[in-house]
Each structure stands twice: as C-alpha cells, then as structure tokens.
C-alpha cells in the first residue's frame, strides 16, 4: 500500500498495461515527450517511443475517428483528451461510430478504446474547460462511463478500462487529480457496475458522483457528531449504473438524496430517482431529492464559479431538509 495521487495511480495502471500489451497506444496533444498536460503519461515516451505515445495535431474529431478505426483493426487506443469539452468536436464519431460498431457488425468487431481526461469545475477554467457531460454518454447504448472518486478506485477502474473490449469514457475530475490516497501496490481490477458503499449509515442514503463523494463524506463525518447517520454511495460507474446497491440502501434508510456537480435536467440523479420510484416507492419515507450544479454555462470569476457548484452549506442544508421531511 502506497500513498499516491489520483494521477500517479492511473499512471501505474497505464504503465503496467503498456508493458504487458504491445497493442496499447496513447494519442493526445502533448502526451509524448512532454508527458501529458496533467502528467498522465510522464516518462512513458522514453520507454515506448512516438508510435505508442502519439502526439497529435489539435483535431479531436480526426484522432477519435482514427482511434476508432485502430480499435476495429486489432489495437487498443487510449485517447488522452485533456478536457472533455475538447472531444465534443468528435461527438458524431463517438455516437455514430464508436458506440455502435459492435452492434452494427453483430459482435464481430470489438471496440477496445479508452477515452480518458478531465471533467469538472475549478481553477476558474471557465466554460470551455469545465464540462462534465457524462449524462449524454450514459444515454447512448454502447459506452461504459467511469467516474472514479479516489486514487485507489482510479487505479482499479483504469486497469479494467484498459482491458475492456467496449468503449470506455474514463472521466477524472480535475480537482481530484492531485488528491492523495492509499493505493494497493499490486495489480487489481474493479468491475464496472459495482457501486461502493463509501460510508454505512441508517438515516438517509446520499448518492454522490465523482468529486462530490469526497465532499459528502466530509459532511457525513461532521453530521455524525450531531447524531445523523448517513449512508454514502459512490456508483463509480454511471454506465452501467448499479441501481441495486442504491435500492438496497434506500430499503434501509427510506430517504435518498443525489448530489451531482453537473446539470440536473435529464441527469444521473433523474435516472436514479425514476428507478427508485419505480421499484422502491414503498420504501420511501420522503420524496427523493436532487442537488446539482446550476444549469448554466460555467462562469469564470471564482466568486461566480463557486456559486454554481454544490458546496458544504448547500449539501448540508439539503441533507438536513431531507431528514426533516
């Protein structure tokens, strides 16, 4: 067990996978000799050279389409896209091609491609470097959508992603990249579709996504001093989404709040709420609540930026209101 940053943990997984599988290659802007904007590929270029650490021009649609074709023909590309906002230029490739080719080819072609990079609000990055957009990909059949919240999960989920034959979006909250945590030194995988119960409790279930898991865990600790017992669930992947773990928790607590930094309409919280209403209405002692980031483009000024994200006060208030229902 080592204490590593989130980025060091995924680097460990990538480095090992590249050593074992010569078909894995990484593409992106500045991921070669530079080692990646976020040091995601630091030192790998020296080991594996320019074909496996392939710097590209700024043409996201082009290299996503190219990597889709590469995945179709026997190699395993990793697209290191820096910010998820950047690959929206390749959305047509992703939705019309990458996600559908396994189906269209009746399973004879596999799509082992990983698209990894940042999501999330922070650093006054403003609205072209703060997007999360995962509900869009979750809506589309064919994708795996991974949202790790800590370094240990990041390593296990990235290892699984690198061995997946389905297209994976591995989405790393920018404000988590330098967060530290204990990471097992050995090789391990965390399966997709298995939520983590990040904290056990009895009074209410809080489902939190990505960075919000950490924020909610801190608040749960504070509230425990006031005698409030919260169960915190980290789905870890939203496609597939482990609704069973959430439903089982709601059976115990009778109350559910979903905390998600990104937009509320047609979001993951909407999906969870609909599912629990459909299959667990009798278990509920209060209406299901959602707390999301504001449904507006992300502003630049730190004051405005903070105003759009669920924070300690708004989350605490939402939890207290839920308990009081």
């Amino acid at each position, binding site marked *: 067990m080592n204490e590593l940053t989130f980025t060091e943990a995924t680097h460990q997984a990538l480095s090992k996978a590249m050593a074992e599988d010569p078909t894995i290659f990484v593409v992106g802007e500045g991921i070669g000799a530079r080692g990646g904007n976020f040091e995601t590929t630091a030192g790998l270029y020296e080991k594996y050279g320019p074909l496996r650490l392939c710097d590209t021009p700024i043409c996201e649609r*082009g290299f996503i389409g190219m990597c889709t*074709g590469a995945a179709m023909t*026997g190699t395993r590309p990793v697209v290191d896209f820096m910010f998820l906002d950047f690959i929206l230029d390749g959305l047509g490739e992703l939705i019309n091609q990458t996600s559908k080719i396994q189906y269209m080819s009746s399973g004879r072609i596999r799509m082992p491609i990983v698209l990894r990079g940042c999501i999330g609000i922070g650093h006054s990055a403003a609205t072209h470097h703060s997007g999360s957009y995962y509900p869009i990909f979750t809506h589309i059949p*064919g994708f795996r959508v991974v949202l790790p919240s800590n370094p240990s999960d990041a390593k296990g989920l990235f290892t699984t992603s690198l061995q997946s034959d389905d297209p994976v979006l591995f989405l790393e909250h920018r404000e988590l990249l330098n967060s530290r945590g204990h990471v097992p030194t050995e090789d391990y995988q965390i399966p997709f579709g298995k939520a983590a119960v990040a904290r056990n409790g009895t009074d209410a279930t809080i489902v939190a996504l990505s960075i919000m898991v950490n924020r909610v865990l801190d608040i749960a600790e504070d509230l425990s001093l006031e005698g409030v017992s919260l169960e915190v669930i980290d789905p870890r992947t939203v496609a597939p989404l482990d609704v069973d773990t959430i439903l089982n928790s709601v059976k115990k607590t009778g109350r559910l709040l979903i905390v998600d930094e990104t937009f509320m309409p047609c979001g993951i919280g909407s999906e969870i709420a609909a599912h629990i209403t459909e299959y667990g209405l009798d278990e509920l002692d209060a209406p299901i609540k959602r707390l999301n980031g504001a449904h507006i483009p992300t502003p630049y000024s730190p004051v405005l930026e903070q105003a759009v994200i669920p924070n300690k006060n708004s989350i605490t208030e939402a939890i207290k209101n839920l308990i009081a229902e």
Partner: protein
Amino acid sequence: MTSTRNKFELYQTLYRTMAMIRAVEERLARSFMAGLIHGACHTYIGEEAIATGVCACLTEDDSIFSTHRGHGHALAKGVPPNKIIAELYGRETGISNGRGGSMHLFAPEIGLMGTSGIVGPCILQATGAGYSSKLMNTGAVGVAFFGDGAVGNGAFHEGLNLAAIFDLPVLFVCENNLYATEVPFSYASRNTNIASRASNYGIPGIQVDGNDVLAVQAASSEAISRARTGEGPTLIEAKTYRTRPHAEGMSPTGVYRSEKELEMWKTKDPIPRFRDVIISDRIMTEKDLDQIDADVRSVVDTADKEASASPWPDKKTVAKYVYKESK
C-alpha cells in the same frame, strides 16, 4: 511484365467482379420496387470499375471502409451476393444478421469494415487501420472509399493530414461522381480538382478515369505498393458517374442534372468499355464474356432465392451485441 496467363486471370476477375456488382445492383433495384427492401438502397451502377480495380490489389488482411453506396465495395472485397441481398431483405442470414441493412454491411473476416450512413468517418477509420498496421507491423493497408461529397467535410482534412504526418499505409479513394446526393461538386467547391488537394498534405494525388478499370487497378496497385513499403498514403481521385438516382425511388435526373448528361455518361459505361478492351486485346472472346454474364446472373438468381427464403432474425436477440459481455 504481366504474363499472358496472369493477364487472363486478372482480366477475368475484373470483368466478373464488375458484372457481379451490376447484376446484384440491378436485382436490388427491382427488389426495391417490389417492396422487398425495407430501407434505403443506393446502387453503384456506373461506378463498378472503381471498387473492382482497387480491391483487385488487396488481400483479406487489408481493410476497406465504405460509404452509403457500398454494395459494390462489399462484393469486390469478396462478400457473397446472397449475404448482401439477405441483409437488405432484413434476414438473419444477412451479412450483419439483419442489424445493418444496406448502409451497415460488415465482414471483418475478409476486411470489409463497414459501409456507412454518415459521410466522412470512413476516411478517419481507414487512417486508424493504417495506424494499427504500422504499430503492429503487419503490412496491411487501410482503404477509404468516399465520394466528392466528403471532400468538403472536416474528416477529409483531418484524416489525410493524420495519415500523412504518420506516414500511414492508407489509400484514400475519392469516387468523384460529380454530385453529393443532388448538390453539384462544381457548386460545393472552388477547386474541383480533388487530386490536387493531396499536395496540401504533402502526399501524392492521382486523378484517374474511374470508368476504366485497368487505369484504376494500375493506379491502386502502385499506391498500395508504396503504402506497404512504408512510403505513406495516397489520394486517388477516380472520376465517374452514377447512372441511377442517388437512391432508388428518386429520379435519376431533374433540376440537378439533365437527361442529355446522363445519356452521355451511359456511353462511358465501364463494363462495355472493358468488354471491348478484352475482345480487341484477344484476352477472351465475346462468347467467353457472355458465359461469365450468364454465370453471374445464375449466381444472383440463386442468391436472391436463398435470401428470400431465409429466416427473419429472432426478436429475442435484438439486444445482443451492444456490449461484448452481452454476447
């Protein structure tokens, strides 16, 4: 020098493939009218020489990425006609098990990596096939077929640029049939010489008569040799014309092109042209060629009967193949 025997075999293969594409497409056009085809059907009639000439230079390890007008590419790459006809009839025995239809024909076992309903992505995917080949050092070539309509699309620019800077073994084959659906290329571009754009990317660009199968075959052969020896991609512009409408059920002429133009291009039909060459070069006789035509018609008749009698897909399997795990 090509020996006489090799020349005979090559010409026979080229002629038979073109005749097969023509016969399948004519059958599909009739089937469309009869209501046997459930979705769109874009025929390749008039353009047979291009797929035939290019694919004659490929092996099963080479990958092709095709278009909405892709039956000819599939046949030239070696997909049996019954598998294509059954797919268009929506049957389980179709090449994509009824999941694709005309615009999503896949046979990865022999390097057909899909026809497509979206213009442009095939250029990028063929570039990716070139990347796989280079990374794994397999010697395989990626080939993109696309129309003049793709040339104004960003995928053309991004794909050619990526293939060029990485020296990838890729052949870009632009089938310039002068119209993107019904929009003239002369309207859609200030520079109607597509091959000339290759110089923007520092790669060779070659213009060929796309209705001359030997010219297409010769240009492709050279470009593919270059690709296989690490000399990078080539853009081939094959000038041609589709003599049927954009899609079956539409009009072959109209505000976008005249009857006169259509009739003029029919005189350049690649199949009679090649027939004349074969006969005048004394490679085969008229009788030999008639025999090939009759064989092909018989194969297509049988294929059509088989396809019509094939079972429908099982509804219970509809969710199969979305993910690997669901297999």
